């Protein structure tokens, strides 16, 4: 099995087990995405954007 570097510490299930299960991940955040999710400045910007979007969505009736 090739060595996976990024994010490996969080992948707790071995390939041997995953191979015979549903646990083949469709999406997994790499370091850049993990940083973006926790970056206060970017997330504050997303909070504003999401609040506006949610307000517009909630008004769709």
């Amino acid at each position, binding site marked *: 099995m090739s060595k996976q570097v990024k994010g490996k510490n969080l992948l*707790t299930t071995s390939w041997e087990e995953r191979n015979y299960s549903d646990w083949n991940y469709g999406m997994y*955040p790499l370091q850049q995405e993990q940083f*973006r999710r926790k970056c206060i400045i970017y*997330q504050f910007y997303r909070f504003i954007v999401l609040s506006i979007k949610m307000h517009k*969505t*909630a008004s769709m*009736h």
Partner: protein
Amino acid sequence: MARVVILGAGISGHTAALNLSRLLGKKHEIVVISPNSQYQWVPSNVWVGTGHMKAEQVKFPLSIPYKKLGIIFKQAFARTIHPDGDKTTNKGFVNIEYVENKENEKVEYDYLINATGPKLNFSATPGMGPEEGTTYSICSYTHATEAWEKLQESIQKMKNGEKQKIVIGLGHGSATCQGAAIEYCLNVASLIKDKGLSHLADIRYISNEWMAGDLGMGGAYVKNNGYVAHSKNIIESLFTELGIKWYMRNSVYKVDKNKIYYENFDGTEAYMEYDFSMLIPAFAGVGIKGIDKNGNEITDGSLFKPNGLMTVDADYSSAKKPYHEWSGEDWPKTLQNPTWKNIFAIGIAFAPPHPISKPRTTKNGRPLTPAPPRTGMPSAVMGNAIANNLAATIKAGGEYKFPRSASMADFASICVVSIGYGFRGMAGTMSVYPTIPDYKKYPDFGRDLDYTLGEPGIAGHWFKWLMHYAFLYKAKANPGWWLIPD
């Protein structure tokens, strides 16, 4: 003067009561009947179940807003509905039984809104539930408090170096509220990770969904970094990051002291051992009966369906159509009972025409049919729509008016699966429009991608945290409450 009687003071009933009071003023009478004198903001029960909040923080006495708005409250169980009255009166009434002294009273109505919510049908899965079984629930603040007490025992054992098996999910093949189960699972995993005990916890999510991210609404497609991706990816990503294993397409049919028995779609029967388990039960009607003028029970389905949920203006014959022919047109638009026009049902209380996710059964015939989610935001939107429609009707002198659609095919739903508590945390934020996919209008993905989104990040967590305080502020009918969206 018209009298509107509302059965239930949950999210849908309470929203309807507040909006009716605002729209009609004190010229008309609004009566709320509920066995619980407390309002609870159910979405925050997740935080009660992980010890981040006390039950007192998610509930308050209903008398606070009702005194302000002049709403009459009766703490009682509704036992029977008499839509044509009885031998002494032609006016419809509800027979109620007070919680305190068990006395009965006939409460006459001009308009009736059934917003009773669900009966938590733990008995559908033998051995399950906090009362007679050994699993826990977060469906109410008392259940969530008990779940936290038990979870603490497991955490203490892990601190002592003992491995613990934690199973969270859906306790029946027809259960719904997958979002709440996922949120609790992620919160428990996050809590254990924060305590540095992940290596001692085997955390599993078991569900009747066909795939992760189905959420009882057939999943959703969202725009994501230049792709249109299924919600499966977001949920699986969050599970992976917190080391949770997911077991989908399983119909749980029995629970004992330390095992959960289930059958997979392919017919494999298996069990899962657990030390702590939170399983959401199937929902059913609360058991109110319809009685005709002669005192006989109405059993022809005109008032209640066999599952105890109320008949409304849905196209129930559509359930016989093939899955690909189901559409938003099948769903009720007015939530009005077709026989007794002055009766409405909102939230969990109305009988949906069919599920949203594709219904399946296991090889041995057990259900794998997630029921359509009608809690949280959809409940509140329905409550507000019915309040607007009834207010317009009453103002028009009784001629039925429907300025607002109450169809789940016409409004959006927002679900924030939040992980952690306070300023720190993470969330998967999701909105879908329309709630019921419409493949005629949106042939590619069933929903409008401009209003359907899914995004992991802290921003959604802050949003959920803010919602807790905003919605409790609104529910207390504090100044400007109606400016806060449903």
